């Protein structure tokens, strides 16, 4: 573990003075803490062991969301209290992962506002509001999941499908790049990732008939370096009839083949968005990400074939974007039970019990899938974390009931792991729904679900927090929650996991057994992934409480940082 506190303390006396002098008028010298120093590649690469900063959306390149500090632990978490609350300008859905660099925190809100805050006090340093273009097309809410940091820049994707680079010291925009056409359904809600000179970002739009991608842009200029299309020109695949768990998906292969002969490969409007950050393996120079649903979501008649690489784990070469391997969970998905929660790289036991480099992904199906990182092959899948009924009944004109509902299982919410317990932690939804199909032609950038998934209001909804032993696939513990869960989770070396609920509760659990050890009522839905950081030897846990548009949880505008009471 690095100790950057000493460096940070020195800078208060020296470097920060010049930082303040160079800053815009929004920057008050008296509020500055830390040196606002450049984020080096070494810092980003070694983030998993950094007990002071929180430099990546999911903690580190492996995306473990395991924070290595233990000052806040099972023994004292009962003394956790709010240190400060920052209220943003925007009272709306919040999915931001706070990023912390030497005592400076960067958070985002709906509609692409970015704030730099003093992480000790919550005092604003600067505020950047993206100049949104007139055309935006997005599902599911005007969300943003946060920034990436590198050098002296902060990077953000925007609802009008741009990538912007800001000066980390002032919030002033340095450059912007149009990633894709917003009018055709492309938008950005995910946080970018930075590796060396590249900003990596995918795209939303699986509900609008886009052709998905992951792109790399130059950190200095915003120029495109490479593009990987998540939908290849040959998207047909192997005509798989069973899902990753071996269940029959009831496909009419002959009818699909006839449709393919008539209409050709549907790759140009086949969807395949990428909602979350890739996991980065610097050793093999690969990135691993998951690809979302095919378009239109519920109507398979217009898209014969397996619809590669939708609903898949995909690995590509970090330097070139060239395909390495993939594993498809659901071929020809007509339920939107796709792959959205970001993958995690960690050591797992293979089928023979030997440790190998693995990749974990939690699906909307409610399974945690465990893969061999070498070839993307699946080693095992976990017990179902939520009820599964009537899988895979096909959507009908009248509506067919099936569990899980289309939000999961595990939605976009990132998992966390504790590599010592060899446990993964996921938050789940239980939302009974009916699946209805109605075939309509490509609507040129409008919402294109091909039907609807409708909540059954008479049936109870709930959620859970589930720990899975990824070496066996067994559920180690599970805690039921009053609300369906969406947002994310954080594990710490203090033996804790932190996660929030739509009813405003933010909780800490014992990561070994699920015992609830602490809770706080935030006053609005806590539906964002928590982060942790340490400043001047004091550990904090921070989370956004802004509610959620997708599930209509109470909106708010709070960033709340907690620390131990004196």
């Amino acid at each position: 573990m690095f100790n950057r506190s000493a460096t940070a303390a020195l800078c208060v006396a020296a470097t920060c003075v010049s930082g303040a002098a160079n800053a815009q008028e929004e920057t008050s010298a008296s509020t500055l803490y830390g040196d606002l120093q450049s984020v080096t590649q070494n810092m980003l690469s070694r983030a998993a062991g950094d007990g002071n900063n929180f430099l990546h959306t999911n903690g580190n390149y492996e995306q473990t969301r395991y924070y290595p500090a233990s000052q806040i632990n099972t023994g004292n978490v009962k003394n956790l209290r709010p240190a400060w609350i920052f209220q943003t300008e925007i009272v709306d859905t919040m999915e931001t992962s706070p990023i912390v660099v030497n005592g400076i925190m960067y958070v985002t809100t709906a509609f692409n506002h970015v704030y730099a805050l003093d992480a000790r006090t919550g005092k604003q340093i600067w505020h950047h509001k993206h100049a949104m273009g007139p055309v935006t097309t997005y599902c599911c809410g005007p969300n943003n999941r946060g920034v990436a940091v590198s050098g002296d820049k902060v990077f953000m994707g925007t609802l009008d499908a741009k990538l912007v680079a800001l000066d980390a010291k002032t919030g002033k925009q340095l450059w912007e790049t149009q990633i894709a056409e917003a009018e055709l359904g492309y938008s950005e809600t995910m946080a970018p990732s930075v590796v060396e000179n590249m900003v990596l970002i995918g795209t939303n739009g699986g509900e609008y008939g886009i052709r998905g991608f992951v792109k790399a842009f130059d950190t200095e200029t915003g120029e495109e370096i490479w593009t990987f299309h998540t939908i290849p020109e040959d998207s047909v695949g192997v005509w798989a009839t069973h899902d990753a768990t071996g269940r029959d998906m009831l496909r009419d292969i002959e009818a699909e083949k006839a449709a393919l002969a008539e209409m050709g490969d549907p790759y140009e409007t086949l969807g395949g968005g990428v909602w979350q950050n890739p996991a980065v393996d610097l050793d093999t120079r690969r990135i691993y990400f998951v690809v979302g649903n095919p378009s239109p979501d519920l109507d398979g008649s217009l898209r014969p074939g397996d619809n590669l690489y939708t609903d898949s784990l995909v690995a590509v070469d970090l330097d070139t974007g060239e395909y390495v391997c993939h594993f498809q969970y659901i071929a020809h998905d007509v339920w939107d039970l796709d792959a959205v929660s970001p993958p995690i790289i960690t050591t797992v036991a293979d089928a023979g019990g030997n440790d190998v480099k693995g990749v974990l992904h939690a699906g909307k199906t409610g399974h945690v899938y465990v893969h061999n990182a070498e070839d993307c092959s699946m080693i095992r899948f976990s017990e179902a974390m939520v009820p599964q009924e009537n899988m895979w009944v096909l959507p009908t004109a009248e509506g067919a009931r099936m569990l899980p509902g289309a939000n999961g299982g595990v939605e976009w919410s990132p998992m966390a792991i504790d590599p010592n317990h060899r446990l993964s932690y996921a938050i789940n939804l239980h939302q009974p729904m009916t699946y209805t199909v109605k075939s309509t032609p490509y609507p040129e950038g409008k919402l294109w679900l091909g039907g609807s998934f409708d909540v059954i209001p008479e049936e109870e909804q709930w959620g859970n927090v589930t720990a899975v032993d990824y070496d066996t696939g067994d559920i180690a513990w599970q805690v039921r929650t009053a609300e369906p869960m969406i947002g994310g989770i954080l594990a710490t070396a203090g033996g804790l996991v932190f996660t929030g609920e739509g009813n405003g509760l933010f909780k800490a659990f014992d990561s070994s057994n699920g015992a609830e050890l602490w809770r706080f009522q935030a006053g609005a839905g806590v539906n964002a992934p928590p982060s942790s950081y340490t400043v001047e030897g004091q550990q904090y846990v921070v989370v956004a409480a802004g509610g959620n548009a997708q599930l209509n949880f109470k909106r708010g505008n709070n960033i709340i940082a907690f620390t131990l009471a004196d």
Partner: protein
Amino acid sequence: MRLPFVTLAWTLAALAPTLSATPSIAKDDFVLEDEVALCMSCHGEDGIPIEPEYPVIWGQEYFYIYTQLRDYGAGRRENDTMSAIAAEYDRDQAKLLAEHFAALPWPELPVVYQEGDQQLAEKGITRGQCSACHGKWQGDSRIPRIAGQQPHYLSQTMHDFKNDVRMNAPDLNSTMKQLDDETIAALSRYFTTINVQ
């Protein structure tokens, strides 16, 4: 009607913030002020439509207005009056009109509310996952503002989707079929109670 030159010049100056380009000539004799006057003859001189089933378009989202004009013109959305009018506009003309009305203030309409509306409406919103697209009902780009909209228009629109009369947002046809008439009525009134931001 063609405005005298002096009047036109004065009007253009007064509306300068909302008029960003010279009208193109895809519609013969297209003069923005004439077309605006035509729109206002139904949608209201002060932004309050003259009939309850006509929508408020003052302050509506630019891209939504533009898209609807294009859809009317192309036959993707049908209305006896609007289809014929919109069919004459090209893209630039439709954009000019959309820019004009999007820049105007949303009018205040009377709140219509019945006991129990909120509970029924929220149940419908949950069932249809309406907030996933409509957010806080204020509109954004291609999503229309429905907070403070005419309740008769909203009710008619939801029924038109439910009955496959309106087809230019096809996913709403399926969603609206899940809602009974009582819920649609409650929703249309409930949205008049939402503050316009």
